[in-house]
């Protein structure tokens, strides 16, 4: 326990590579690796950037519909 508390307040070097499986890059600084996880698997939305744009578009659409709904029955 004492050693643990000692270590808490001791500066340690950046060793993020040690934390990863052998051969992995720095998780904090490397861009997202293209791979299986990067495929969205969605028809018409092949990249995550497009998925995010689609979600943002839905948000804008909801706001517009809410504004129209409010105005129609104001």
């Amino acid at each position, binding site marked *: 326990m004492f050693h643990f508390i000692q*270590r808490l307040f001791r500066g*340690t070097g950046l060793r993020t590579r*040690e934390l*990863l499986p052998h051969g992995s890059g720095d*998780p904090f600084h490397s861009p997202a690796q293209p791979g299986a996880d990067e495929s969205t698997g969605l028809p018409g939305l092949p990249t995550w950037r497009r*998925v*995010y744009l689609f979600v943002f578009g839905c948000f804008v659409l909801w706001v517009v519909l*809410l504004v129209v709904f409010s105005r129609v*029955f104001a």
Partner: protein
Amino acid sequence: MSLLDYLVLFGTMIGIAAYGTWQTRGVHSLSGYFKGDQTTRWAAIGISVMATQASAITFMSTPGQGYESGLGFVQNYFGMPLALIIVAAVFLPLYRRLDVYTAYEFLGRRFDAKTRLLGAALFLLQRGLAAGITIYAPAIVLSTVFGWRLDVTILLSGLLVIIYTVTGGSRAVTLTHKYQLGLIFAGMVTAFIVLLVRLPAGLTLTDAFTVAGGFKKLEAVDFSLDVDQRYTFWSGLLGGLFLSLSYFGTDQSQVQRYLHGASLRESRLGLMFNAVCKIPMQFFILLLGALVFVFYQFERPPVFFNEVAWKSQAERASGDRLRALAADFTAVHTQKQQLIRAWLDAQHAGNPQAAATARAAAVAAQAHSEAIRDETKGLLHAADPRTSTNDADYVFITFVLGHLPHGMIGLLVAVIFAAALSSKASELNALGATTTVDFYRHVLKRDASDAHYVAASKWFTAFWGLVALAFALFAHLVENLIQAINILGSVFYGVVLGLFLVAFFLRRVGGTAVFWSALTAQTLVFGLFFTLNISYLWYNLIGCAACVLLSLILQAASGARGNTAEPVTATP
């Protein structure tokens, strides 16, 4: 409630809990217990994230909000889609790449052990105290309305959730979320249909919207820059973005839900599902409240929706004034009903002038009704200061109890309990995970077997469940408890978000700088809290900004590139 209602209520609640417990029995690995072995598909993740956020308060208070203030509350969720995009694009890939159990474990990897423990401790303090409210808030309303014993209601619902959360861990939580949210949607759609059927004959849905709109209940978006306005597009977008980023990005009760994903893709799609569906879902619940308002224009509502509190005072000898106000309220309501019918008749006849005149008179009658309600609330509060003047939580349950057929009443009460249990289960699971992974495994016992950690996790989850139960049982002793918990959350949330924003976006800042900055920022927030008289929501912003700015200053003053991380042995 009839026997049929009780059968539906207990059948659904116990059935879902028993199924979840049975299906997830025999979990022996920590990964299985806290991350469901990361085999969950996006739909289950999306549902679990949604069920965690939707507490019982969502289904009791939100229709009441729609009834009283209209649709404007939906703007509070405008920042959420943007926050979820940021979480999916920035936070989630790192959490998954580092294969962490908790968000605070990430802080340890990025900074150091002391920063990790600080983040975890702030979470346990804030969420541990708030956990009792998740059980207490619906229990107090339901026990009041149905005359149940408060302590029995709290114990039964609390013990049920503890049993399946302890037994099956995170997998049981995700599995039960599916059925609980299915039950919630079924109940809310049923209530909506019954409400439409119960509207007066000849009143179309367009008429109902016209009436609601005429009383300003359908004003969903307000683009004004007036800071005195409670809900605006801008406050919802900016404040909502900030709060949602804290909640979805750094609160373990949500982080644990999407770490279940079979892949980064599944987790991301689960979050995007919520980003797309949350606004229409909240709109639907608020619209239900607005339509309950329309319904009560043709059916006399109680003058005060907490009828038990009203009756206990009105039946006393000193209740003359309350009874007189109720009689006035009935007279005004009858007059208002005639005016609304005249307004709709004029509208149907194509006479806009007569419609406008009748509408203005109906609005004036509504203002008179509200004045009577306000005086009633004042009298009730003066007679018993423990009586809350806010009866919005009782609006929907009063409608359900008075106007839904037997069987459906049980279903709607089950909806409220399902929502309470679903959010409670996520909280307990997150509290157990953080205590086990960030404190027990990290500080006290480093080299034990997986089976040992799973056993410890079960004990910690049960411990937090009992703490929440004890807190809920004694919650009535604290005045304005819910507000106190909200304040507590705002006092801590800002600094925690600051820690994570520095971790993700300020790569040059190291552990020591951010640790002392967070402590200083938290002290500053405490100091301001006890000296200033500002809205507690501002402490979110102040805590976060102070943590980020002080980190930059301290790091610059120390001169070194301060990126530090725990040695590999520090995180088993």
